[in-house]
């Protein structure tokens, strides 16, 4: 069992303190703005899940993959022809994945931050966002899934997990800098 939660506490807390999270939790986030967030998340999850699957990270928990549910949530909310903007941190994340594609431990650190987040705080977010919120709906016992993810982690993953929290923080900041008329309805 790892101490990853403690080791990444500072970065985790910093991500949660961002203004975007307050908008997300307000219950009034503009659906178009939320869809922009989903589109950026989709790019990250799609790539991470394809790479982590290749290394067997999801072998015992295949149903936690989020790519399709994020896609469905996005398609429900986005009505324009051209997709929304990808922020710089999303591009940077895609480049970063090239460097870690051979390292299942580092990929697991990403699953620890992203999927564990959806299974934890995501459960509160799900009731406050527009649309069906499929991204936060999981099959099976959530506590058991979290335990399975936790059992795959170790302290050596801390640096990579910190990177993922910092990448999320940058995403939140950059989303708030987009030229969007109303962040909330």
């Amino acid at each position, binding site marked *: 069992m790892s101490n990853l939660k403690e080791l990444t506490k500072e970065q985790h807390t910093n991500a949660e303190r961002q203004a975007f999270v307050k908008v997300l939790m307000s219950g009034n986030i503009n659906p178009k703005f939320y869809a922009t967030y989903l589109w950026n998340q989709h790019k990250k999850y*799609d*790539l991470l899940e*394809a790479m982590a699957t*290749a290394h067997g990270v999801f072998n015992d928990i295949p149903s936690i993959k989020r790519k399709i549910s994020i896609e469905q949530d996005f398609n429900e909310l986005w009505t324009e022809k051209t997709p929304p903007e990808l922020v710089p941190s999303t591009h940077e994340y*895609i480049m970063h994945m090239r460097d870690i594609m*051979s390292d*299942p431990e580092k990929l697991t650190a990403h699953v620890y931050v992203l999927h564990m987040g959806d299974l934890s705080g995501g459960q509160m977010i799900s009731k406050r966002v527009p649309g069906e919120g499929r991204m936060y709906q999981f099959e099976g016992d959530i506590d058991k899934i979290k335990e399975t993810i936790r059992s795959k982690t170790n302290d050596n993953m801390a640096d990579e997990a910190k990177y993922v929290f910092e990448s999320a923080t940058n995403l939140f900041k950059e989303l708030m800098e987009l030229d969007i008329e109303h962040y909330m309805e």
Partner: protein
Amino acid sequence: MSIIWNKLIECKDEIINIFEEHATEFDEPGLAHFNNDTWVNRVWQNDHVRRAHIDVVDARDTKGLWMMHVCVFPQLNNDGPIYGFDVIAGKNKMTGAFHDFSASATIDHPMIEGYKEAVEDFIPSKQRELPEWARNIFTDKMLAAGNVRTEEEAVAIIELALDNLRAYLDEIGEFTGAGDVDLVTAAQNYYCHNQQQNPHTPRTMKSLGLNEEDVDKFCTDMLFPKIV
């Protein structure tokens, strides 16, 4: 009559011959849906190549354009590069031609070094600026030419792509067994992910008059399918 189109159609026939010589054509589930009078998709495989795909859209009569996409993925225990050749051409010019040996699991793979030597002296008259998704996956010697109007330059690009395809299929077998399956899978997925970010692909295919829904599905499921 169009010299450029004629040369490209000869090139397409030659690519099919090369695939026939080296590999066996197979029925890929779902691919038949994307075959009709103007749109042709065929795939081959052998012990060293898991998917050699040629995709041709012949919209010469309706839109004055002809497009070809060729992509060869090695088997997952082979760390060799991914072969790519894409062309779109109007009657009097190639508006875009792209060719590369893109890295899979091994960035400095010997086949990539060989490719770089082969293209070293080849400088198209107009080099394209590459977007970020392309810089993530293509080599620094990727051939990216636009507005190719002369027959000489078109033929040079075609010959280069054909020579490199023959060399690729002759050499790729040497690296079967040299790749870690998990790593090659992740690397090929990385390539596909970045290719899927190319906004021009669906836009171009739709401009050829293909059904919009079909194009969207094709670009996700058939053009650069991730292994998951």
